[in-house]
């Protein structure tokens, strides 16, 4: 009976269906705000849903000589990982005591998987441009994972726990200097994890014409797009849980309202960065993440250790 409930939670709420709908709405916000920045009207409210629906009626092209099994399995792997990550996060938000010790580590691993899926799919498609996009994705991942994990260490040190429920209850991060520094690092890493401008070199529309996803069509492409939309929704939620847990108090409606506003601010920051910066080269991105960003993250960890 309990097993059935978990499957239902995975498929409906707070798993696949809920995260997919929320993610597509977030991607509509992204497109609409982008349009407003460019003084356009922008797409209709349901446009992300139309896009996904259309991709499901299109033919699936499989490249000749590619690793077909991996090519078709990669998108599912990414989708399953982000669904599970979102489910762990939302179980924490709904009931802070319901989670297990070490779920933060599971979450960090799960959030690596979508990038890994894009990479595997790109290499399996046997397209030179996709390979180039895939190799950039690898380099980008190596670049941002180090400062991201360092920054996540800050709330962990402050709460002295690797359980998301404890991190959510801990008021320290945002009211301390180390917490603010770690949040800034996390925002930069989030931008790279979502492969949004200025770190969109794995896709690079004008340069690699679709990059890692160039060979994908039909349902597999739809699943990749869905995964990206779900990441755009999930990562800001993770940051809210990690850094703003202390602000989420008071009666239920107040907690959810504050949480939603904080989430929206984080999404808005992402969209504004995406619309006001040009794409950087991959070597510049690696230098940026291993240089200044990692140093700030190290300083934040040191400060957190000293109790600042």
């Amino acid at each position, binding site marked *: 009976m309990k097993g059935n409930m978990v499957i239902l939670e995975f498929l409906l709420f707070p798993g696949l269906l809920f995260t997919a709908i929320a993610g597509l709405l977030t991607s509509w916000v992204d497109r609409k705000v982008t349009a407003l920045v460019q003084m356009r009207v*922008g797409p209709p409210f349901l446009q992300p849903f*139309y896009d996904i629906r259309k991709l499901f009626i299109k033919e699936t092209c499989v490249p000749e000589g590619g690793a077909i099994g991996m090519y078709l399995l990669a998108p599912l792997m990414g989708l399953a990982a982000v669904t599970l990550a979102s489910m762990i996060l939302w179980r924490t938000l709904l009931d802070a005591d319901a989670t297990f010790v070490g779920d933060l580590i599971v979450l960090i691993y799960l959030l690596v998987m979508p990038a890994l899926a894009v990479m595997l799919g790109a290499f399996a498609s046997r397209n030179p441009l996709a390979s180039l996009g895939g190799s950039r994705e690898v380099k980008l991942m190596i670049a941002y994972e180090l400062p991201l994990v360092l920054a996540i260490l800050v709330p962990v040190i402050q709460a002295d726990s690797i359980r998301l429920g404890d991190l959510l209850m801990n008021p320290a991060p945002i009211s301390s200097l180390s917490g603010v520094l770690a949040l800034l690092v996390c925002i930069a890493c989030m931008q790279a994890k979502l492969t949004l401008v200025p770190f969109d070199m794995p896709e690079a*529309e004008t340069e690699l014409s679709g990059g890692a996803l*160039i*060979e994908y069509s039909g349902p597999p492409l739809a699943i990749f797009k869905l995964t990206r939309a779900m990441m755009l929704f999930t990562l800001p939620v993770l940051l809210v849980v990690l850094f703003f847990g202390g602000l989420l108090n008071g009666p239920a409606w107040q907690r959810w309202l504050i949480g939603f506003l904080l989430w929206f601010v984080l999404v808005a920051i992402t969209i504004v960065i995406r619309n006001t910066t040009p794409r950087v080269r991959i070597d510049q991105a690696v230098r940026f993440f291993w240089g200044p960003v990692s140093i700030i993250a190290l300083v934040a960890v040191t400060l957190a250790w000293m109790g600042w």
Partner: protein
Amino acid sequence: MINTINALTRSLNVFHLAGSACNNCDIEILDALTPKYDLERFGITLVGSIRHADVLLVSGVFNRKAAIRARELLEQVPRPYLVLGIGGCPCTGLMFRNSYNWDCPPSAYMNIDAYVPGCPPKPEAIISAVVKVVEGLRSGALVPRCLQDTTDLAVEGVGETT
């Protein structure tokens, strides 16, 4: 069961296929996709990969060499798709139709659904053509030619003579 036409026409990803065009039509196509006309209102976006395409905007005279490439590209589009001939060249070949490198009009080997004549057509004309095609598809007056039985197309031989 998803309604194919409805799903397709609500979200059109445009791929730009320039076959040795003089660049005028290409610039007009890009103009139509600028913020001024804002085609994203209707779900129309430009894509860089032909695997993501729903609509091919075909421009240019398609000489012998370009015709081979165009046929190869057309085999890579996931179905169902639409093809729009932009400008006078895909319609008639204009003044190039008697030249040494002209083999046959692109309609001989492509499923062209609609033509937008003009040299070059204005962005408004391109948008109006897209709107008419979408209306035709929704009312059932038009069926995407890639879904029809088109055995009259010259699959072999085009552009292979030198």
